[in-house]
């Protein structure tokens, strides 16, 4: 990502709470980070996990427990949540990468269901109620997060740090290998890369960052509950990423903002929200596979490509997946 985009992004994040309700913005940022973390796996490594809510949810619970019952400060609770999700991701990843493609998706979904049942049945997770009344606490022991603006800027910091890390990973040599695996796994293997290890590593990183997003959500809303770990959320994060644009750096964020806004706009219509989400899925898959950002990139590239050769991956990715 170039410097101009960064300046625009940080600037927009800084001034946004003066125009939009900060708690809603904080929610957008949490889900934005979740989708970006997910994109690390599907967009840049080509692995479709259908169980990412397990990481979001388990971190939400760990963070809620540590902040409420152990009394950790929010940043430590979030960090622990992320680490816990990373640890679970280590185990799940090791199992799931033993199979490919469709099986990978089914395995992650089934494994995530174990986490869901633990959240439902374990004595400390509060069953159907979840963990209620998690205190926001004082960030670093100093800044009172009950102040909505302070809370927003805290979440913004977490988001930007996570987003920076993802952008950094994508541009690193490690990220290049991931893309190579996505484009042509046998070839990456024959070039001597330990493909299984790279996939596993990407899985753990994606899980940990998804965990950070889930834990931050707990601090914002002061509870962790079953929907955080349910397969609906796993599906929604797929939609966010797909709608924004697989394998684009900004796409998942745009997709997450769109989906979350759509949900809150339609919240008065009951289960029609689910229908709308399903229809969006269908439309995206049938007509709109590049996603919003991918489509824009494609449009601008087509217009200006006679002079400029761009190395951004999304369109190439699209064409290769189509012929695979």
């Amino acid at each position, binding site marked *: 990502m170039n410097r101009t985009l960064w300046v625009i992004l940080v600037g927009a994040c800084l001034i946004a709470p003066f125009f939009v309700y900060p708690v809603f913005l904080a929610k957008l940022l949490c889900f934005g980070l979740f989708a970006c973390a997910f994109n690390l796996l599907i967009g840049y490594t080509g692995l479709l996990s259908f169980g990412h809510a397990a990481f979001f949810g388990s971190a939400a619970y760990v963070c809620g427990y540590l902040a409420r019952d152990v009394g950790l400060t929010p940043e430590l609770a979030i960090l622990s949540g992320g680490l816990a999700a990373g640890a679970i991701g280590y185990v799940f990843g090791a199992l799931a990468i033993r*199979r490919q493609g469709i099986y990978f998706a089914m395995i992650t979904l089934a494994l995530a269901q174990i986490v869901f049942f633990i959240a439902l049945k374990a004595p400390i997770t509060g069953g159907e109620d979840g963990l209620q009344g998690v205190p926001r606490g004082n960030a670093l022991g100093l800044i009172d997060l009950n102040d909505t603006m302070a809370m927003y800027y805290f979440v913004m910091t977490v988001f930007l740090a996570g987003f920076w890390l993802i952008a950094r990973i994508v541009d690193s040599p490690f990220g290049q290998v991931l893309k190579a695996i996505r484009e042509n796994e046998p070839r990456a293997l024959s070039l001597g890369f330990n493909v299984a290890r790279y996939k596993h590593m990407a899985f753990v990183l994606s899980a940990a960052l998804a965990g950070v997003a889930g834990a931050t959500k707990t601090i914002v809303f002061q509870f962790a509950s079953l929907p955080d770990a349910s397969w609906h959320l796993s599906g929604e994060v797929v939609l966010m990423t797909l709608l924004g644009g697989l394998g684009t750096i900004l796409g998942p964020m745009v997709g997450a903002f769109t989906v979350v806004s759509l949900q809150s706009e339609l919240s008065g219509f009951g289960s029609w929200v689910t229908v709308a989400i399903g229809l969006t899925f269908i439309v995206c898959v049938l007509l709109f596979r590049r996603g919003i950002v991918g489509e824009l990139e494609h449009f601008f590239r087509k217009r200006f490509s006679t002079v400029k050769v761009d190395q951004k991956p999304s369109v190439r990715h699209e064409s290769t997946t189509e012929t695979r």
Partner: protein
Amino acid sequence: MSLSLNAILAQAMLGLTNGAFYAILSLGLAVIFGLLNIINFAHGAVYMLGAMVALIGYSYLGSWIGVPELQAGFWWALALAPLVVGVFGMIIERTMLKRLYQLDHLYGLLLTFGIALVLQGFFLNYFSTGGTPYPATPAVLKGAVDLGFMYFPTYRLFAIIASLAVCFATWYVIERTQIGALLRAGTENPNLVQAFGVNVPLMVTLTYGFGVALAAFAGVVAAPIYSISPLMGADLIIIVFAVVVIGGMGSIMGAIVTGLSLGMIEGLTKVIYAPAANTVIFLLMVLVLLIRPAGLFGKER
């Protein structure tokens, strides 16, 4: 804890009912996957749709079309709901899935997931998640039969037998008849089969319709046992996915055997350690992945 032999047998029989549904659903998934190379995420939703069609046919359809005395009973539902849902499936295949065959398999998964959400969300608006009992269980199938070691509900016995009959009929058609031979050939190499003059696109459409109809049949059979809820398929499909991962999708008989035995194992877990009953299939999946990643009956592609 009393682990009498009778209690164990009783739970195994109850588990076998679930197992029969796992078998018929994973069979449908395997048939569809074989030819279309997609995992039908909407399988749980069409199972629910089958049960819903049975319920609507009995309780609502008559008054909608102005003939209140018309009530499509259980046997009608058993015959017609799979047809209705099968046609619905074929329309889905012709209008949507068809466009995705050239793409990565994952798009098929995502599309059918979208379809599942639409169906589920639609029915959630009109039916409660708590579930509606099916009002038209035939009198013949009420009561219980003495199996020697327990009194077993007649209807559940019927459900097991009906599901198994359909499973084995499917197995027979696919493995032992001319049509099945074409289907298997199409699974191996669709281009070659088409070159021999077989209408492969039609075969694909019919296969999808058939797979979906199997799920709808399971839904109708399940309706009198479980209450009919818009979410009844959503929880089931994830278990069926685990069953498919355990069995592998390589063989029809493998899908049937795996489904049945996992249902029984789940039932037995209820006697031995009840809290694990919900997760035992997922844990077995983990075990199988560690020992035999391709699945018990699977072959690595």
